[in-house]
Structure formats: structure tokens, C-alpha cells
């Protein structure tokens, strides 16, 4: 049976993992490679690395991080942040990433999804959507770290992304991000019902039960979280044990280490 995935997310700035609240108050946390190794040992199913500065100078440091992570951990990982063109996909995939996540660049140029899917396959094109509820009760797509309302409807955008060839959608609820009051279930479920590709829920994890709620059969296929893992509020192994006990299918990690 296909397992539900637990995905720690690491925001990387100048080669370090950082975490802020609602995209602000960035503070230094840890070395990405050692954190990636730790999460792998704890049983994480995948990892996500976002290059949150993505200036030209920090770009090379980031690519170096990607390569080091690929050398150390044999689980899949996604890279995002600052991906604007096919060449950017090429660079991170060649460095050892498995999937590439695009957000603002896809809004600006939707055809990028199609070009990347043709060239590298749908399986490595992840459409990341930052959404926020508007006055009419609909979900609007935001870009630039939640600052710009694109006017796009999140459900329509998810459908369009799937048609263009995205292989997965990460849905990040801006309102719940960093609040630790749980994932936005109605948003995640609405997106899941709009498309037939895997859905990763993001933003709001604070307790074990939040993961259980969002990983129900008709909601998300995977749950992404950052600070609860970084600050050791929840460990991945503890979380998986909890999910097993509560009937959520997750991968049990092998005990045999590498020789």
C-alpha cells in the first residue's frame, strides 16, 4: 500500500537552514546536511530545500548544499526557490535533486511547467501554491512570499498546473503557516478534489494530531512541516509511531543500517 509521506522542509539562506514565522523574523538554525542526515535517520520519507534568498551569489552555495545532501542521504528530495528557467531545473537536477518546485515563476510563465515536464518528466515538476482566503470565501493564489495577490483562483490554478504537466502540488496555507494550529483542511481537501495528482499539505503543523487529520484518505498524500521538526517539538520517528497507532499508512523504516 502506498504510504503517506512525512516531509521536513528546510529553508536555506547562504548555506544555513533558517526558519521564520509567516515568512518573517528569520533566525539561524542549523547546517542543512547534518539536519538532512538526522531526518533521514529518524525516518523522513522525503525532504524539501528552499533557497530563500536566491541571489546570484548565494545560488552557488545552494547548489553545493544540494550536491552534499544527495551524497549523504538516499531518499528523494525537492528543491525550490529562485527557479525561473529550464536551466535552473537542469542545474539542481544535475546536482542530485529529484524534484523541482516552482511557485512565482509558474504564475509569471505557466508554460515553464510544460517545458520542464517535457524535458525532465512530470514526476520532477512540483507546483507550489501559496493560498489565502479572500473576502468572497474563495482561495486566492499569492506570490512573493505571500505579499502579492495574483488574482488567480487556487483551485483553477491547480487544475491548470496539472494540465500543463505538474506531477505534484504543494499547497501552502498562508494564514495557518507558522501558527501551529493545524493544516488548513478545507483548502487542502478542495485542492485534492480538483486534481488527480499527489497533494502535499504545508503550513500549520503543531501537534501529532494535525498530521493525522491532514493525512486522511481524501485529503493530502504527504504532510510538510518545518519548525516542529527543527526545534524538536515533534520527532519524525515519534510522529510515525503515532500515525501507525492511529491507522495512517506510513513507511516503517528499516532497522538495518548501511554497511
Amino acid at each position: 500500500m502506498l504510504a503517506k509521506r512525512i516531509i521536513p522542509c528546510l529553508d536555506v539562506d547562504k548555506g544555513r537552514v533558517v526558519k521564520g514565522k509567516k515568512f518573517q523574523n528569520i533566525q539561524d538554525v542549523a547546517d542543512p546536511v547534518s539536519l538532512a542526515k538526522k531526518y533521514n535517520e529518524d525516518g523522513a520519507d522525503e525532504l524539501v530545500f528552499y533557497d530563500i534568498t536566491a541571489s546570484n551569489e548565494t545560488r552557488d552555495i545552494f547548489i553545493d548544499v544540494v550536491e552534499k545532501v544527495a551524497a549523504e542521504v538516499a531518499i528523494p528530495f525537492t528543491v525550490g526557490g529562485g527557479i525561473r528557467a529550464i536551466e535552473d531545473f537542469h542545474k539542481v537536477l544535475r546536482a542530485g535533486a529529484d524534484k523541482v518546485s516552482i511557485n512565482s515563476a509558474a504564475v509569471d510563465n505557466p508554460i515553464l511547467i510544460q517545458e520542464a515536464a517535457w524535458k525532465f518528466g512530470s514526476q520532477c515538476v512540483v507546483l507550489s501554491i501559496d493560498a489565502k482566503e479572500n473576502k468572497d470565501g474563495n482561495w486566492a493564489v499569492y506570490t512573493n512570499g505571500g505579499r502579492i495577490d495574483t488574482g488567480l483562483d487556487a483551485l483553477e490554478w491547480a487544475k491548470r498546473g496539472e494540465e500543463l504537466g505538474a506531477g505534484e502540488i504543494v499547497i501552502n496555507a498562508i494564514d495557518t503557516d507558522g501558527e501551529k494550529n493545524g493544516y488548513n483542511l478545507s483548502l487542502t481537501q478542495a485542492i485534492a478534489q480538483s486534481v488527480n495528482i499527489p497533494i502535499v499539505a504545508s503550513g500549520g503543523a503543531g501537534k501529532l494530531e494535525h498530521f493525522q487529520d491532514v493525512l486522511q484518505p481524501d485529503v493530502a498524500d504527504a504532510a510538510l512541516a518545518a519548525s516542529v521538526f527543527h526545534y524538536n517539538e515533534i520527532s519524525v520517528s515519534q510522529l510515525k509511531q503515532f500515525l501507525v497507532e492511529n491507522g495512517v499508512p506510513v513507511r516503517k523504516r528499516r532497522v538495518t543500517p548501511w554497511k
Partner: protein
Amino acid sequence: MIAIVDYGAGNIKSLQFALKKLNMHSCVTTDATQIRNSDAIILPGVGAFKDAINELQQSGLATTLKEEVSNGKKLLGICLGMQLFYENSYEDGVWEGLGLLKGNVKKMNDTVKVPHMGWNTLTKHRNSPLLKDTVEEEYVYFVHSYAVQDYQQNTLVSSTNYGGIVPAIVQQDNVIGMQFHPEKSGEAGIQLLRNFKELIG
């Protein structure tokens, strides 16, 4: 020396890192002589079937691979690499594959989400040295939208279940295919690659 055939697709680096952990020397190559001189060949791959098979045909590597297989050399295909072994693929058209194994590659059943993405379990169909030191229901990482159908039952070593039975490990003599990514499947994947190493001898 293991020759990893590079036809321009995907994340080859992770495969190299995994082989390195097992002290398996590998080179990423498109050179026919280097492939002929190797101890075994790995055909990796993600991306489109059409592009991959065109690249292999035009470069002449398709012929090299078939010759090496008939000489008895071990060939491991991973993901799209495995799909290329079959007769035809119906991915955006109809494309002729390498024809090393009988069967076709078709879009997965859309009663489930496609791509089939994530960790799924292996069910054993027959004994094979490839499964040495693995456990029943071992989790490995899959990511694919097309799967092998109309295959010969006796080639099926392991399958997974996703909207029906999906061939996961296949073997016919020296031709071995893995639909999932052993290089991304943690300890389980490393064990499977170690078993491949022991098979090469």
C-alpha cells in the same frame, strides 16, 4: 567497472553516490567501447520514453546494449530504463523499445492518482538472489506514470500494488529491471543494489 549509460536524462548523481557507498566503481558514459569493457551496465532514466529511445537509437547505443546483453552481460534498468527494455510504449504515441523483454508500457490506471509517487511495498513472486536480505513488504520509492503490462509472468520477481498489480522488479536471465528508484529507497534500496553487485560477482 559499472557503465552508467548517460543519454541526457535525470538524476544520475544519486545513483553514482549510492554505488560509491557500496564501493562499486562506476563511470557515466555514452562511449560504446567503455560500455563493452564494463563489468555490468546500468540504464537509468527519468523523462519521456520517446526522447530516451530516440537518443539510444541515434547514438547507436541501443545496438551496443543488445549486443552486450546477448553476450551475457548484466544489465540493470531503473525506472524509465526498465521500461525501455520492453517491446512498445504507449506514452504520447506508440514507440518501439529495445525489445529485450516481452511486454508493453502503458499509462497507469487513472482510478488512482498518477504519477504513482512515494513509498510502496514489494510483494515477492519468486525467489531471486536480488531479494537477498530483504524483508516481505519492503518499502521502496516509486515515481512513474506508466507501467509495464502484458509481461511474461515468469519474469516477475516482485510487484507492488497501485490500482492493480504493478511490476516492480523483473528479471530474465541477465536483464534486470527495477521500476522504483533503488538509489532513493534508503537502506532497502542500498540492499537491492548490493544484491545486484553480488550477482555481477
